[in-house]
């Protein structure tokens, strides 16, 4: 497990910064809820009048006046988009960074198989995503307790679970892509995460492109769906699991035969 621990050590600063940033914003978001609640009448009318803007974020379908409704849309976006960007940077750079900094030559001339390198690196990526999400859950619970709000545990757990699976999917897909890269793919990784986020927003706006929800993992993290159905949308989730498996499989197939320059 030397590579796994080496990877965690290399990533600890970045993990600390991302966790703090996302947890801080989540915490702030929860803490402003009491203030928002007092103005909720005005806000609800405002959102009602905004039409497609509300639809884009699923705000037409959930009750903004409840804590879980507020959390599912407002705070969810922070962990959703922030976590997606973090997962993408991890996934895309895990392998590509070694080649960009020419350390792949160092690593792969040691008696370790490429499969072992891949497995331990992927495991390290997942572990860092787990940590980020645990910190996020902890900060959310603590700040909810601080403002004296409570929410249905099952629904909250489903929200967090969906964000977590989404980040795993994005990291696996970008990991698969990075097996083809020679240099730094950070731009590609972040681009993919943002693109997937906007695909979901577009699919919320018009029924014609509903199929996009099968492509983007944000399809199954939609707070409005989870809160109103009390469940994660299974067809979208299934598609996500297929993409995750495909990303990992492609990484193994490609990296096994890759020329390291």
């Amino acid at each position, binding site marked *: 497990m030397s590579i796994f621990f080496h990877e965690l050590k290399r990533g600890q600063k970045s993990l600390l910064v991302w966790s703090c940033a996302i947890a801080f914003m989540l915490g702030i978001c929860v803490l402003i809820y009491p203030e928002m609640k007092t103005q909720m009448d005005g806000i609800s009318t405002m959102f009602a009048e905004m039409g497609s803007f509300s639809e884009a974020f699923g705000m037409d379908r959930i009750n903004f006046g409840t804590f879980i409704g507020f959390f599912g849309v407002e705070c969810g976006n922070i962990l959703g988009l922030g976590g997606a960007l973090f997962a993408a940077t991890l996934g895309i750079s895990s392998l590509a960074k070694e080649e960009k900094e020419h350390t792949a*030559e160092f690593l792969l*001339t*040691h008696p370790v*198989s490429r499969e072992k390198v891949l497995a331990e690196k992927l495991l390290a990526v997942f572990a860092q995503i787990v940590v980020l999400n645990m910190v996020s859950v902890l900060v959310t619970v603590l700040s909810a307790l601080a403002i004296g709000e409570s929410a249905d545990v099952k629904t909250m757990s489903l929200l967090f679970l969906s964000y977590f699976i989404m980040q795993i999917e994005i990291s696996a897909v970008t990991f698969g892509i990075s097996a083809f890269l020679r240099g730094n793919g950070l731009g590609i990784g972040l681009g993919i995460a943002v693109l997937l986020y906007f695909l979901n927003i577009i699919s919320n706006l018009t029924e014609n492109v509903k199929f996009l929800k099968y492509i983007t993992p944000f399809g199954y993290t939609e707070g409005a769906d989870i809160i109103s159905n009390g469940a994660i949308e299974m067809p979208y989730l299934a598609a996500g699991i297929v993409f995750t498996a495909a990303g990992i499989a492609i990484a193994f197939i490609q990296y096994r035969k890759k020329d390291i*320059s």
Partner: protein
Amino acid sequence: MKAIETNQLTKFYGKSRGITNVNLSVEEGDFFGFIGPNGAGKSTTIRTLLGLIFPTSGSAAVLGKSISQNRIEILSQVGYLPSEAMFYSGMRVRDILSYSAKLHQRDCKEEAGKLCERLELDISRRVDELSLGNRKKVGIVCALQHKPKLYILDEPTSGLDPLMQKEFYELLTERNQEGATVFLSSHVLSEISRYCKHAAVIRDGKILASDSVEKLGHTGVKRVTLQSAERVPEIPDAKNITVENGSVSFLYSGSPKQLLTSLADLSFEDFTVTDPDLEEVFMHYYVKEEN
């Protein structure tokens, strides 16, 4: 058992040439030099042997094991020094050394300590603060600390000062005497002629010659110098003709009789015929024939 044996080893990067039909044979216990100009295919050969890149065709075995089947076993017995050693930025020398040892699943602390002392390497420094030469030293310790059976060194002395080069070759000679095989690539000819027992010359991806360093030096080619010659003689087998201060010098590979006949009607003050030094022989391989 051969330490390295390649059979028609060929590597193309897309359409561009890496190496073509390379046949190398390095005996166990040898001190082998691999010589060639930049871009000749030295690194390509080495990287293929280490499994960093995959051959287009042909095969190779290192320490009796196929490079396509037994990469891990091979690498556990090999110490590799890349021509440009790069390490994880921000890490200290001691962490790099211990990470390398961990990847080898061995405890190399004692050996690493000795090596760092001899090479005067400060293990508390961060690798990104190191000069080229000091980074090279980190690479050397990584390649030597686990006491492998085979050393594969790609341009090992670039960046090292002359004292360190000497120390480094002493280390290699010790390891060689203990039974290890040394395979090093270089374009510094004097190094090869001084330390290596056997050598191979590579150019444009092809092996031109492979033999003992002594035999490579005795190619039947003579260097002929004519002092104060009236003109440049017309000799069919003369190559590499230079004219300097009135004296004419050239490499000659024909028969002695023909040389004397050709020189008979030429007036000059004095002349010498010598074996060219090894460096000159290698230069002869290096320089592309004009036709």
